[in-house]
């Protein structure tokens, strides 16, 4: 993949589209600092990823990036509340205080799962699981949300609802949203869509 230049504005909503294997997820991972670029510079919200070591990039991700995955990626042995607060358990750069707990509960209420905080993922529907995953992505109040085909496992009705929800939350939080998707029906929810295969020729 070769990206000569890509500028994404603060709070912009961008969809990455393209055929399977064209590099949509790779591009998202480069922006998140999961993959280091072989050459060149990537800067996100003033953070110069190309100057950061592995540990600094992980701390950057935990505090600045919220991830939403296609497979929800919830831990089955944690209840809903603990799944939402997972970023606070696994990286000491985030401090689990009452404010963090209040934010998690407020998000859960906002997404309609406030009454299911003590349930485990196995007791939730697909739509509910994705809402939990969205809460987790937003729990640390990141400036960038990366959603990797978040509606891939949902029916059409749920897919539209979840997309609207993510877009709405990103807007409320003033966060930039990058969504990898195959669903052309939802592209009108984004300010810009980039065909990664065509643009960057992976």
């Amino acid at each position, binding site marked *: 993949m070769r990206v000569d230049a890509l500028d994404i504005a603060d709070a912009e909503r961008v969809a990455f589209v393209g055929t399977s294997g064209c590099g949509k997820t790779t591009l998202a991972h480069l922006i*998140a600092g*999961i993959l280091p670029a072989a050459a060149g510079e990537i800067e996100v919200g003033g953070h110069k990823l190309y100057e950061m070591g*592995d*540990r600094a990039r*992980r*701390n*950057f*991700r*935990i*505090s600045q*990036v919220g*991830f939403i*995955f296609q*497979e929800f*990626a919830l*831990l*089955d*042995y*944690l209840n809903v509340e*603990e799944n939402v607060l*997972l*970023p*606070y*358990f*696994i*990286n*000491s750069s985030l401090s*689990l205080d009452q404010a963090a707990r209040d934010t998690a509960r407020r998000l859960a209420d906002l997404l309609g799962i406030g009454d299911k905080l003590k349930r*485990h993922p196995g007791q939730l529907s697909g739509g509910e699981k994705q809402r939990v995953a969205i809460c987790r992505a937003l729990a640390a109040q990141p400036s960038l949300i990366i959603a990797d085909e978040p509606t891939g496992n949902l029916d059409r009705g749920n897919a539209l609802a979840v997309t609207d929800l993510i877009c709405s939350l990103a807007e409320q939080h003033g966060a930039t949203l990058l969504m990898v998707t195959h669903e052309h029906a939802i592209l009108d929810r984004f300010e810009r869509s980039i065909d990664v295969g065509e643009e960057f020729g992976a």
Partner: protein
Amino acid sequence: MSGIIRLTLRYIAFNKLKSIILLACLTITIFLPLALHHLILHYEDELGQRARLTPLLVGAKGDRFDLVLASLYFKGRAPEAITAHDLDDLRAYGRAEVIPLLLGHSAREKPVVGTTIDYFRLRGLGAASGTLPLKLGDAVLGAAAAEELQLATGDSLLSDEASLINLAGAYPLKMPVVGVLARAGTPDDHAVFVDLKTAWVIAGIGHGHTDLADPEQSGYVSERSEEGITANPAVVTYNEITAENIGSFHFHSTRSELPVTSIIAAPRSEKDRTLISGRYSVAETTQLLVPEDVIAELMGIVFQLKRFFDASFLLVLVTTGLFVALVILLSLRIRKAERSTMFHIGCDRLTIFWIQVAELVTLTVLAAALAWALSHLAIAMASRLLA
């Protein structure tokens, strides 16, 4: 609570069955060698301590282990008896304090130890209630025996009927409990102590009955002759020694023939010890033992057996290790997605590693603690069982 600990505890609690199986495997693997090791050390200490407090032991020639175990711990069958002649002979030699023991009888299934007052001093035993001096017919109970039989000073105790030596007919003897010993944590706690002569009465070698020489008791006489008086079956044999009838008690044997199971000998000096040893080195029917050496020999056999068990435990350990490794490998495979999620979110490598292995570490620590507690429980239970 640390994130790693929280996640680990949640994982263990969520996967209950797997955790219980792993915990059981690890606990058993740790418990078996630990308990055996602790038990052996415990008994080596317990047996050794009592053996060290028994300088020399004289008994009939035969199995030295039987003689020591019976005389020191009141365990196993009573070995063949020697005679009061041997006791008097050693006492007359004057080189050691001698304490006789007559074993093999019981009272309400507690071992009866026929001895002298010196035994209490040798063992450092004191009275928790009542008095210790043993008179003919008195019984002093060990603390555990008193507790189990629910007897106290002032109560009475009946000896069991079984008798190996039955020259003149053995009758259960009713004995007043004149004292209860303070708990010593030794086999003495579980025994009933009587005077040597009382033990001979319990054995049926001595008894007391109506005074046939008294003309008023002629109704009990079948025949009077120059050789003696023959009683008829109606004569009353006493089953309790009282101030009124104590004079009627007598033995149907000369003192030198009366049985003694063993003699504890405490030499007054090293020279006396050597002289006594030399005296018994040529004895034909008796043997002199150093209990400490006999117990050390016994423990040597036990330690040889332990080495065999240690080798077996090593195999169990390897098998359990392989089983645990398999479970962990499968667990790591199952948790691959979890590691990927944590990596994407921003968890550092070391934390991911600890989250994955903390389950095993936690279960191993728990298993070790459980095994340690169980091994101590096993020692307590085994002590009670053996006591």
